[in-house]
């Protein structure tokens, strides 16, 4: 996970675009291109794909010209359909459960959706970029809270212990067992036990692979 990843940035604020570029290159990653709107992003990805130089991950803002509403989300959904190998990390001033659901429709492989503020925690943010580039998931804690709140399975969720709820949240954010363990300052084994308990209580088949696991959890919450 320490390899340099190749990134395309789509962000209409030049200030933020330069900041993101500086931050990522400082950590040894390569910013292949920076664009200012969704049209330019789609064109740039097509150009790179045609040249056989598809980047590892796209970092895109949700609100971009011309309408400043949800261009970023729509471009991301389209890119994920056209280029399944491409990771897409969407940044936004606000996170919304509805956009997350649209982004995750079908698969949670190589997708991220974070509050823009999270770039302030440089290490966490760069970790998320790398994780999404490698096919992982990065969901903002706030989105996860909304998904948990909107879920129709409140009765079952109420049956979880507070610790299990915590683990479920971190799992839905896309973290691996060891990352969850680090965050909660417990052993990997303890996390594994919590995870299997959660799957048992939710009635889900324990799945292998972190991104499959995320998808299972999210499907469950949304059903």
């Amino acid at each position, binding site marked *: 996970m320490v390899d340099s990843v190749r990134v395309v940035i789509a962000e209409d604020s030049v200030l933020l675009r330069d900041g993101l570029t500086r931050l990522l290159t400082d950590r040894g990653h390569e910013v292949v291109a920076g664009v200012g709107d969704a049209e330019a992003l789609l064109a740039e990805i097509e150009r790179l794909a045609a040249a056989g130089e598809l980047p590892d991950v796209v970092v895109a803002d949700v609100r971009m010209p011309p309408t400043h*509403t949800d261009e970023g989300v729509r471009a991301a959904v389209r890119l994920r359909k056209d280029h399944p190998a491409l990771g897409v990390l969407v940044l936004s*001033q606000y996170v*919304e*459960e*509805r956009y997350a659901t649209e982004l995750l429709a079908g698969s949670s492989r190589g997708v991220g959706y974070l*509050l823009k*503020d999270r770039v*302030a925690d440089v290490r966490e943010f760069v970790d998320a970029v790398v994780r999404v580039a490698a096919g992982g998931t990065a969901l903002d804690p706030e989105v996860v809270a909304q998904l948990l*709140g909107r879920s129709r399975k*409140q009765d079952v969720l109420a049956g979880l212990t507070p610790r299990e709820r915590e683990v479920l949240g971190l799992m839905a954010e896309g973290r691996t067992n060891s990352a969850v363990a680090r965050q909660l300052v417990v052993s990997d084994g303890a996390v594994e036990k919590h995870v299997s308990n959660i799957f048992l209580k939710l009635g889900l088949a324990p799945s292998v692979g972190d991104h499959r696991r995320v998808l299972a959890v999210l499907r469950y919450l949304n059903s």
Partner: protein
Amino acid sequence: MSTPASGTPQHPDGEADDPLPPVRATFAKETWKEVAHLLTNFPVDVFGFVYVVVTLALGTGLAVTVIGLPLLALGLSGCRLAGRLERRRVRALLGVRIGEPRRLRMDRLGFFGWLWAAVKDPVAWRHALYFFVRLPWGIVTFTVTLVMLFVGWPLLPWVARGMANADRAMARGLLSPSDELERRIAELESDRGIVVDTAAADLRRIERDLHDGAQARLVALAMDLGLAKEKLLEDPETAARMVGDAHGEVKLALAELRDLARGIHPAVLTDRGLDAALSSIAARCTVPVRVVADLPGRPAAAIEGIAYFTASELLTNVSKHSGARSASVDVWRSDDRLMLQVRDDGRGGASPDAGSGLAGLAERLDAVDGVLVVDSPLGGPTVVTAELPWREREFDHHG
């Protein structure tokens, strides 16, 4: 007080008529005034009838020519003027106060704008009708009063009162400003006042939040960073700690700005509608909130905005005051109404009295013909239901 005139009705414009004293066999001042009114009915009504018939007949008869419609419009404007004089006579002699109708409303400026507005002016037509139907009545009142004066004067006060009351009813019915349209306009004007007031209050709130929140934080942050810059060489360890504090401070400022901007208008409300926008305010509540939205489409943006704001305020109340363990938000459409219901299992006792947050909400809803119903017995549960008119969206916002 048992005379028929004692129950003088209150007018929609709020002005009370002069109270009438009971009829007595000895002639009171009011009776003389009524008699004077009934006697003047004849000349006034003859003049009014002739005026209306001549101008309207001329105007409509010549409508095919260039001067026809202007003549009709002039004639109708004259009816308004005559109506004003008649209201004065009624007020002076019968003690009936009738508010002035609104001035002529022109959709367009210029001669043709005036012409069109004057020709279809409902007030003028009602006044014309008044003068048209009055002539036979004027003859009757004049004759009867005259005869009674000479041969039946002991009964005159009662007869005069009866006929004067008919006059009062006629004047109120046809000379008053209180038709449906006029009333609706007055209502809308007061609603607009409330909307303007709440908009101004919102701006003040935003200014205050910016001033006390993010702005203050940024000042503190600039100070911290300035100090850290000075410490950088002589005491790098302290400087690092200060930069760390500043980092925390700036993240808080960002979160505050985000909350503030969302409070003004969340982008997702415009993009995806009420259902999607409710997720984040539900997640923000301090207790678990179940959201169920069952809407066949999207209502007008203004209605969505007010519904969102209402839900947001009600959930803030749940967080702050209710002591609830769980809450729910339900949104559905019922015929031409948008219904929003927030319930919680808290301690109840919420009151929509003046000055409370709920009263402010009720006022906002009222501005769009909405209603707020609060059911909150002591000990709970609290159920607040908002009902808004379902107005269709004027255009569909991309998909």
